[in-house]
């Protein structure tokens, strides 16, 4: 029912060009704007990232970070129409590297700059320079907290998406994930269904669950998370002596605040040891299961490739437009089949490898979460999960008191 309705709305009625002999079609031309220059965008992104870092680490101001988000939304969201795009960037780069094609330096910089900043200052990019992050930050109304264990499990989804769609990009399957970029209709002001429906769903969920896309979908976020783990600057909730009031933990809807880690009893240590031992023992199985999962996914991924799909259509006797187009070319069926078989084998190998890697990521994540952290008496921020929104600053009574004194 819903796909039918979607098609009904999505299919655009068009009026054909006039057929009068006296009429000539006007030539379309696009005037290049300064904002179209990628280097200009890189420069602006650098300025934004610097401002974000300054606001988060130096000003420690939620207000400044809100302004940063609003400006990011206006510039990178509405003016640059969702650029830099955390969904498309890694696919572009993966495809470029795999095919040895030329990657524009500007595009490479757009991709690398947020990662470089993450190494230095964490996920400042997500705070507001990312248009998707900005819109979610601003349109979050009332926080419904996802239980931390469930949150950690769901956060594995982006890693899976990253691996799957990297394989897709490498093998020329295209960028299917771009169809799942939920905020694009808003930025492009093009509300064609079914994308607008996806957009509405994410916006609605985002009103209650903070940053649903950043946390549970964004594949670029996986890279940012990894780089942020090694970040030089570590954010602190308060520069004062923490009183463990827990307000920061309750104020952070993203689950980035870590509770104090006590010394732990002997039984807790034993139980932790058993847990880690069990998980470590499971690693080979997880890798095998991941590989198997990747292996099973391969035919599905292959079926999205135009050559493989074309051969299957030819074999099944389907008269699609693609088949008709193919028949008008000089490529023989044997050549097409050889190409498709080669691709299919490549996808099978890559998908299996990606599955193994995903198994490793899952186990690494589980072991990291299952082990006891370094003994810590106060609430701390996990830089790899923190989106630099500054909510904890605003929730911390000591920070507010200090701000008040500064005024």
């Amino acid at each position, binding site marked *: 029912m819903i796909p039918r309705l979607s098609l009904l709305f999505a299919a655009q009625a068009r009026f054909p060009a006039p057929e009068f002999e006296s009429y000539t079609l006007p030539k379309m031309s696009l005037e290049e704007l300064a904002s179209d220059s990628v280097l200009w965008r890189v420069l602006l992104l650098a300025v934004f990232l610097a401002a974000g870092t300054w606001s988060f680490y130096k000003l420690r101001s939620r207000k400044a970070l809100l302004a940063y988000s609003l400006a990011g939304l206006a510039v990178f969201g509405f003016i640059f129409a969702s650029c830099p795009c955390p969904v498309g960037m890694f696919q572009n780069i993966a495809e470029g590297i795999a095919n040895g094609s030329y990657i524009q330096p500007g595009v490479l910089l757009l991709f690398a700059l947020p990662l470089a900043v993450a190494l230095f200052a964490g996920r400042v990019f997500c705070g507001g320079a990312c248009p998707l992050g900005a819109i979610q930050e*601003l349109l979050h109304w009332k926080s419904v907290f996802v239980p931390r264990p469930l949150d950690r499990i769901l956060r594995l989804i982006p890693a899976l998406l990253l691996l799957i769609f990297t394989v897709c990009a490498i093998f020329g399957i295209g960028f299917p994930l771009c169809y799942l970029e939920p905020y694009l209709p808003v930025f492009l002001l093009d509300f064609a269904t079914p994308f607008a429906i996806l957009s509405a769903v994410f916006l609605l969920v985002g009103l209650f669950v903070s940053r649903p896309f950043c946390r549970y979908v964004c594949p670029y976020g996986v890279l940012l998370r990894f780089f942020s783990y090694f970040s030089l600057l570590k954010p602190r909730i308060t520069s004062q002596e923490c009183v463990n009031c827990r307000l920061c933990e309750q104020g952070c809807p993203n689950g980035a605040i870590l509770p104090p880690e006590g010394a732990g009893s002997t039984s807790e240590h034993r139980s932790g040891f058993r847990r880690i031992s069990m998980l470590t023992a499971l690693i080979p199985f997880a890798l095998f299961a991941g590989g198997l999962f990747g292996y*099973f996914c391969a035919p599905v991924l292959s079926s999205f490739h135009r050559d493989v799909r074309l051969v299957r259509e030819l074999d099944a006797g389907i008269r699609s437009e693609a088949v008709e187009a193919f028949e008008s070319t000089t490529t023989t069926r044997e050549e097409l089949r050889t190409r498709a078989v080669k691709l299919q084998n490549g996808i099978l190998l890559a998908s299996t490898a990606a599955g193994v890697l995903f198994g490793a990521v899952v186990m690494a994540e589980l072991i990291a979460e299952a082990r006891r952290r370094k003994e810590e008496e106060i609430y701390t921020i996990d830089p790899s999960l923190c989106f630099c929104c500054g909510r904890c600053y605003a929730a911390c009574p000591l920070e507010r008191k200090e701000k008040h004194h500064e005024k």
Partner: protein
Amino acid sequence: MRNDEIRRTLRFLQWTALTFILTLGLLLAYDMYRSRAPIKQAQDELAALKQQDLADAKLSQTVRDLDYLYRSAYFQTKDKQRRGVLLLGIAFFVLCGLFGAEMFWFAPKLKVPRGTGAAPEKERRQLLVFASCGIVVLVVALAVLRVTLVPAEKKPARVAAGDTGKQTQPDEVKPVQTETIDLAAALEAERTQWPQFRGSTLPNVNALPANWDFQEKWNSPVELPGNGSPVVWDDLVFVSGSDGKTGAVSCYDATTGALKWKTEAPPAAHTPEITEDTGYAASTPCVDAKRVYAVFASGDVLCLDHDGTTLWHKQLPDPVIMYGYASSPLLMGDKLIVQYDLDEKQTIFALNVFTGEIAWQTERDASASWSSPKGLVVDGKGMVFTAGNRLAELFDLETGKQLWSQECMGGEVAASASARDGKIFFSNSGAFTGAFNASDGTIIFRNDDSPAPDVASAVLFGDLYLLFGSGGTIIAIDAADGHELYEEDLDNGFYSSPVTVGGKIVAVDMDGVLYEFEPGSEKLETVGKYELGKSVVCVPAFHKGNVILRTKDSALICLEAKQ
């Protein structure tokens, strides 16, 4: 202004913006949906006008004026929608700003800490529970997906190098051949029946209704759709049907119309791409004294006995053919002839009627066609005539040896031939209209002037060869030399092939008007005309003075003459 007043104002503005966005969004969606119909209507109207003679200055000006009018209306609508979408975007940004402003100006109230705070050790245990549950759910989901979805979808086979497609379905016990069929006796026996597409191979001797004033004797729904015609043996009526997934043969009592049985074919290996006009069961089944044979668009051939028990099933290579497979099989004695002219490969299969094994197959270098083979007997020997794109050919029934071929055909060949007295007659639009000498394949005559039918097969009647077009024109040509004798225009065209029964020609047009014609040398006389009121594309069958028709809406109707 006090802080709480500002907050209240902001909240009010947020709600206003949200309501505005929702209302405008819905209105825009509705407007976009609504504006589609008039555009389509305008385009259709313009297209219809453009079909007329545009040399007429007045008409040309009308087209220009209408084009301008509709185009203006279209772009005005588009502009209006574009403005609406822009307004929606602005409202959206304003909403973000209002949310941001509230967060900007009003720091969250300091709260009293709730609960006892997170317990890391407990959370770790929970995490493992969640992870275990997740793994179990994933494993179950994968298992369910593999067990249910994949077989239902007929898992897309891996593209294998050198794959030539499935040939047979050897999972059934093959019946042992213990009987033989005498061709002459079999052909003679079927003259009183209605055993296959367009009736019997030899002239049919069924009686026509006493008069053309009909009443419905019975009316039974056919569960599965199909464009194959009904066939009759004794008091049993057989039809085939398929919805792409399930193909079946149904048997009805010719006297009461009651469904006696329905037997399904094994699930098709692939659901082929077909057009709605063709359907998945366009081939008419064949029936002899003991068995009924049906071919489906999936390449499945099913043989049942008269009680509906499956005797054998054969899977021919996947039929890759534009529009879908539509040729009807031909039953000649102990062989079932299947003309399998696909896009890539053109083969004539002769299947052993007892076992379904291939008795012979002859591959030719031709093109796709939808024509059905025609059986004939020359000098006591059974032969099979086939017409396809490029070639008209004759094969020996026993060996499959090509006796002769004529490279005279072209276009999309869908009609079938007629044969009499060592002559084979054929007519199809864009292909060929003429007659061949069955003994050596020489062309006796050729008529390139008269418009030929594109779907319905022409019919022989005495010295006449009559062409029933899909535009409603009936042309009579001389069966001796091919020159056109006369032409009649009717209101509706014919997809259903006319047949000669009881010394008359019976034909049913696309609107379900059942005609009884008596062609003369100068004029086609309409003896009877009965309006069924339902569209028909199948060939009617005859049983004891009754007419059995399958309608487009999948009903089987038996008409009998009023007393």
